[in-house]
């Protein structure tokens, strides 16, 4: 049978589990009581989230003049955070869709939480462009709706409108993909409950799933087709995000390598965030048998690949700016490396190009502490990448008399910290109410990938 692999593969599920034990282990965080660590983490996240909401409210009430933007730097903090969060989301879809098509079994222990991360990250991302509209109650104007001033439609030539379609499709499709997978797992949780109230909640969440052969047959078909649809979708989303910049005529933005460069960067930063979250989660929820060093190592390998692609893209940009002979383009890159924002450029270079190369050493790749530290570096580096691309290209434009600097205000920083709070609050709620590992999917690979793989029956 196809689900038996060669014994040279390292086991993906440790500790000689049975089907029932998998259910027990994944259901434990849902059924147990929250410990002190969780309560502290939740309180801090919720307070940060509230702080962010207060800053959002102040922005809406007073107007976006409370941000640090000025007439030269019209895009800065908000779009940096938008691109950063959307990029983080990409790892979830890559794990659940692309690795499904490639039949990578190690995705199964991590896909659920990575997809949750995708959804929460896209929520955080979407807040920024909506806030930047200023009058957020008119946000629906981005939709192609007839309006009272005559039928002046949205502009379908604009990448900003493409973004509206891309992000909303990405968010809703990721959500249904995630939920489709959750239904059978909610049914497992439902059937274990003795408390009728809790049972009722999971009964509703599980949509009355019963796991008949026909249901499973359709389930597999839907998962496969959704993976096939999500794969080009996830690539298109960051491609379109990069076109927000690439179709303009700003030096440093107007380059054709932006789409692949942005997609690689997105996956790079997303995997870093997955590692940051999972290294903590496996410890706190006692999932070390399921999210193993082998999983961490596989993700680190993807970080090396995408990190190297990003590094090559940086060098290509530098080469092309010199080779193009366009002095504006050349100045933009010289200004990035040696101008007043040199520190952000070199932070980006160090965090994104040098640190991931440490993963070529097997010892570092297999060390949880080193992986955790490097993943934080990559998160910071990728934030700086967007900051460098956006602010350094804008702050010294074609007219030297308009040159200026961008300084984030208290509110700018508060909003960014607030989205981090929102993200972690949602993730913490998820980790205690949802099955954080696709437990029933994991059972399908148990025989082949446990420590003592069973020989197939014939």
């Amino acid at each position, binding site marked *: 049978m196809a689900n038996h692999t060669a014994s040279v593969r390292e086991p993906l599920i440790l500790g000689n589990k049975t089907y029932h034990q998998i259910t027990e282990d994944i259901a434990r965080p849902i059924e147990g009581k929250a410990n002190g660590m969780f309560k502290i983490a939740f309180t801090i996240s919720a307070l940060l989230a509230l702080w962010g909401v207060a800053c959002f409210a102040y922005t809406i009430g007073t107007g976006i003049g409370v941000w640090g933007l000025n007439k030269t730097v019209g895009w800065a903090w908000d779009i940096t955070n938008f691109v950063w969060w959307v990029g983080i989301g990409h790892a979830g879809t890559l794990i659940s869709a692309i690795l499904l098509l490639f039949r990578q079994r190690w995705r199964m222990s991590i896909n659920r939480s990575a997809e949750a991360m995708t959804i929460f990250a896209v929520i955080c991302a979407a807040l920024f462009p909506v806030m930047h509209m200023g009058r957020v109650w008119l946000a629906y104007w981005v939709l192609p709706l007839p309006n009272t001033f005559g039928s002046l*439609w949205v502009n379908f030539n604009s990448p900003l409108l493409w973004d509206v*379609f891309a992000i909303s499709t990405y968010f809703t499709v990721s959500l249904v993909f995630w939920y489709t997978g959750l239904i059978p797992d909610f049914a497992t949780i439902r059937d274990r409950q003795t408390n009728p109230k809790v049972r009722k909640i999971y009964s509703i969440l599980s949509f009355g799933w019963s796991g008949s*052969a026909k*249901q499973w*047959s359709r389930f597999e078909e839907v998962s496969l087709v959704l993976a096939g*649809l999500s794969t080009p979708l996830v690539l298109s989303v960051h491609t379109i995000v990069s076109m927000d910049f690439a179709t303009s005529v700003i030096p440093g933005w107007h380059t054709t390598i932006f789409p692949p460069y942005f997609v690689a960067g997105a996956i790079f930063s997303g995997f870093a965030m997955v590692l940051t979250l999972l290294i903590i989660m496996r410890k706190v929820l006692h999932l070390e048998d399921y999210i193993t060093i082998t999983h961490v190592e596989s993700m680190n390998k993807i970080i090396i690949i995408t990190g190297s692609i990003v590094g090559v893209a940086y060098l290509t940009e530098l080469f092309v700016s010199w080779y193009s002979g366009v002095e504006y383009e050349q100045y933009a890159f010289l200004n990035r490396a040696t101008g007043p924002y040199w520190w952000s450029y070199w932070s980006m270079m160090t965090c994104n190009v040098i640190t991931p190369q440490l993963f070529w050493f097997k010892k570092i790749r297999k060390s949880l502490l080193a992986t955790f530290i490097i993943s934080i570096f990559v998160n910071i580096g990728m934030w700086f990448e967007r900051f460098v691309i956006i602010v350094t290209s804008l702050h010294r434009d074609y007219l030297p008399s308009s040159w200026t600097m961008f300084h984030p205000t208290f509110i700018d920083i508060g909003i960014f910290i607030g989205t981090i709070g929102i993200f972690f609050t949602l993730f913490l709620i998820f980790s205690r109410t949802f099955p954080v590992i696709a437990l029933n999917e994991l059972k399908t690979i148990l025989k082949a990938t446990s420590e003592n793989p069973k020989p197939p029956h014939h």
Partner: protein
Amino acid sequence: MSKQVIYGVFDDEEVLVASAKQLRGKGVKIRDVFSPFPIHGLDPVIGIKSTRLSTAAFFYGMFGTSMAILMTWYMMIYDWPMNIGGKPSFVWYLNMPAFIPVTFELTVFCAAHGMVLSYLLVNKIYPGRKAHNPDPRSTDDKFIMEIQTADNKRVGQDDIVATLRSTGAVEINQKELK
């Protein structure tokens, strides 16, 4: 004779498939199988036809494509053509490259959501529906085969039970159908 339903409980999916093959060899009709995860190779044995959901998804996708083409043509070419950045919008196909991203997104949107809605519909699952798996353990670690005597006029109930037992069922439950 009263109508009976027989549940053969297994603790291994491969044993269940082997047992199902034996029963089918005797001409026994298997009503359904409830399992915690999809069992590969079971569908042809118990006579489940492959689903047509992916074909449906293709047509939902085509619907999305057509809607996007119609929408961009109507809004940008027919209803209010504008000269944006020196790119006049007089004919749809000349402006088409700029419409590809939205067309693609709408195709994926309609295919994915159309397919998932159909999936919920044909599987008859929705919030508030009562689950009908015969045993709560079938979503944990047990694999349950459902056989109804009404479907099997030619093979006796005792024969079915004996075959289930000899092919590895760990538990056999029989119930009167109301």
